[in-house]
């Protein structure tokens, strides 16, 4: 790590004023990703602003809309095991528990989960070109070992994927991100929070520097009857997703009223397809219909030398996960059980 100064703040306003819009001043909460990036000299800081004591951002409250507001500083573990989340948003709970390890979930915060950076090996290896780490230097992954990389929405500048599990569920749930900055408060729909790599792969999301995530709003609809999270990876625990799928289904009299399908591990942000979700509306929840929806989601997918397998894998994962959502008891955090 480079040498930096450190300060602790107890209100969001103090945090904003300490950051003062300076890109070298960094916010630290759980630290599970930032401290690692600092160790690798990928992130360099002049000052760390420790926001852990901000009590106003560490609560769960029920909203008048019927939804729930979860504080940015809640830990991933506290969120996953919270009785309200387990009962109303079990998809979110399952997704969180599929990520990282118990120790990391005890440290990592909800806001930090949104802000974590890609685990692309070239991004982490400062001896190689990487447009995300060093804009304009090139992308070593496109012609390199790209097994874990993107198949949807990528650009020729960057094929990194966003690694979160929790955010895949938040995308499926249509969450909203509450933000405070020097110019006041604003709200971003979850789909608008993270960005595709495009021409600016060094910018992961639409949070401006100097702004801070204060909380995340979950809408009233939690899909607690028919939901499932499936994560496929090289080992069955403590590994990032090759492909993950969050499914929420609203089924009435054997007919799908609403379907939500979000993919993780395949793009620079959690991936959804309005076309596929619309296709499933007013249809029966059958394997054939789920297969058709999967084909729609992956129709523009593009693989590289080592990750083309992900296209078929994603299709099968979508079908399997949608079938598991019909019987949520059948799901586990890992790839088990087979159907």
């Amino acid at each position, binding site marked *: 790590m480079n040498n930096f100064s*450190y300060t602790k703040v107890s209100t969001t306003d103090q945090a904003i004023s300490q950051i003062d819009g300076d890109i070298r001043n960094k916010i630290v909460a759980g*630290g*599970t990703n930032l401290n690692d990036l*600092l160790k690798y000299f990928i992130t360099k800081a002049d000052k760390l602003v420790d926001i852990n004591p901000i009590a106003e951002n560490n609560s769960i409250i029920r909203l008048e809309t019927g939804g729930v507001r979860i504080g940015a500083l809640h830990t991933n573990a506290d969120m996953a*095991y919270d009785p309200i989340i387990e009962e109303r948003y079990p998809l979110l709970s399952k997704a969180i528990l599929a990520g990282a390890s*118990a*120790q990391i979930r*005890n440290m990592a915060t909800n806001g930090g989960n949104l802000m974590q950076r890609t685990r692309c090996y070239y991004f982490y290896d400062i001896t190689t070109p990487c447009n995300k780490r060093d804009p304009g230097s090139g992308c070593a992954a496109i012609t390199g070992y790209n097994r874990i990389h993107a198949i949807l929405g990528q650009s020729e500048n960057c094929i990194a994927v966003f690694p979160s599990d929790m955010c895949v569920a938040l995308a499926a749930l249509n969450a909203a991100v509450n933000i405070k900055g020097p110019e006041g408060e604003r709200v971003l729909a979850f789909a608008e929070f993270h960005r595709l790599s495009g021409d600016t792969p060094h910018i992961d999301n639409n949070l401006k520097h100097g702004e801070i995530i204060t909380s995340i709003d979950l809408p009233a609809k939690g899909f607690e009857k028919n939901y499932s999270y499936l994560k496929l990876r090289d080992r069955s625990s403590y590994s990032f997703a090759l492909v993950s799928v969050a499914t929420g289904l609203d089924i009435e009299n054997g007919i799908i009223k609403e379907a939500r399908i979000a993919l993780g591990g395949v793009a620079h942000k959690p991936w959804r397809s309005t076309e596929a979700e619309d296709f499933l509306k007013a249809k029966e929840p059958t394997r054939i219909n789920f297969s058709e929806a999967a084909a729609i989601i992956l129709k523009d997918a593009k693989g590289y030398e080592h990750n083309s397998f992900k296209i078929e894998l994603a299709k099968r994962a979508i079908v399997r996960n949608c079938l598991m959502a019909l019987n949520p008891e059948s799901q586990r955090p890992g790839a088990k059980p087979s159907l």
Partner: protein
Amino acid sequence: MKTEATHSTSLIVNEAAYNLELLPWVSLLDVLRDEIKLTGTKKGCDHGQCGACTIIVDGKRILSCLTLGVMKNGSEITTIEGIANGEKLHPLQQAFIEHDAFQCGYCTPGQICSAIGMLNEAKAKTREDVQELMSGNLCRCGASKGIINAIMEVKGDYHE
């Protein structure tokens, strides 16, 4: 040594109070090992991938390599040195011996602290749950089966 860059930091480690002058960029793991000289907590990968540095902070198991000493000012910490009762081993330490739950021993302090944290969390019901919730602690020697057996015995529902 107190300098302009250091922060006065109080830690309670294994029930003993330490008042330290810490540089902000020093990990809690390095504080424990280099400042407090408690070297039972191991540095495996130093990047949050192996679990060897697992300790218990304010009742929760965390990775000491991924947090900074200054961030834990005022915290109560338990390391592997603090779990035995005098000469009497902690039940998990005893069970690790009886179940051949280590070979080289490097991951063992982290495994045991993690298992204590897991049992306190009380979320694991089955052997499969224990395996899942201990997945953050790797064992290069492959003693994993013995480790899970030892934990299951202490948990109270060990079956061969």
